[in-house]
């Protein structure tokens, strides 16, 4: 009979935790994808950023935060990096995308108005309303104090309502 060491047991638990973590990431995929679109990413950019976040999830140690929040933050960083690269290497393409967004300015659309909010307000609003994170989970994911999340979220909702004419 072979003796099971504490190390083996820890490895088995960590493998199990990793599998659970990856399953939870997979389940959160659609929410995070929609969150990225709500942040202003195009469909293809959102898919690329989500793919990068999944690759990072496979490599990373299992974090303590919720997979939705973790994936969202990693995907947002990846999307921003790609956007900067795009601005440098494909300025004409970026200009075309900006022009297509500008065409929609005439209509009052929830996503258009959301895209006009400052980055932090947008991130908090999307984390709370699209990903369904609680105030504390949002605070952990975005690296803010829960009180800050509350005040930023409140301001974002107020601004959005004003812009939507409500």
């Amino acid at each position, binding site marked *: 009979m072979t003796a099971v060491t504490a190390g083996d047991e820890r490895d088995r638990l960590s493998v199990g935790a990793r599998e659970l973590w990856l399953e939870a990431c997979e389940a959160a995929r*659609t929410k995070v994808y929609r969150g990225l*679109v709500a942040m202003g990413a195009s469909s293809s950019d959102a898919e690329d950023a989500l793919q990068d976040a999944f690759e990072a999830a496979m490599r990373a140690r299992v974090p303590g935060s919720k997979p939705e929040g973790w994936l969202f933050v990693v995907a947002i960083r990846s999307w921003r990096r790609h956007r900067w690269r795009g601005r440098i290497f494909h300025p004409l393409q970026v200009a075309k995308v900006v022009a297509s967004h500008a065409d929609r300015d005439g209509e009052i659309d929830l996503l258009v108005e959301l895209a006009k909010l400052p980055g932090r307000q947008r991130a908090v609003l999307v984390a709370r309303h699209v990903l369904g994170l609680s105030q504390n989970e949002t605070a952990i994911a975005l690296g803010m104090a829960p009180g800050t999340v509350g005040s930023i979220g409140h301001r974002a909702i107020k601004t959005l309502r004003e812009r939507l004419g409500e």
Partner: protein
Amino acid sequence: MTMEHDFDPELARRLEARLATYAPASRISPPLARRSARRRVIVAALAAALAASALSLGYEINASAESQGLGCLHPIAKIQLFANGIADSVQAGDHRGVEGHDRQRHDERDSHLACHR
């Protein structure tokens, strides 16, 4: 029960409805499939570098022949001449075989003179 002032259920419902059209069209491709695109770029870059090297070598061989007044030699002869030049420079100080190379060079020049006759 206290109501969180930074959460609006009505807004969440509207966002949900608005974003419902933005579902991923297909399952996200596995990491390896995406890396193949990166590999394609690397292969293309290597192929381009190889082609540029071959082109510059050809130019160098031709320029070397031109500088010796042997511009109208056959390309293979130009390559041989270039290779001999490199061999000579490698064997600098070693006189073995130099006589043979000189003879070969004279033969090539004679054949070159023949094309202007």
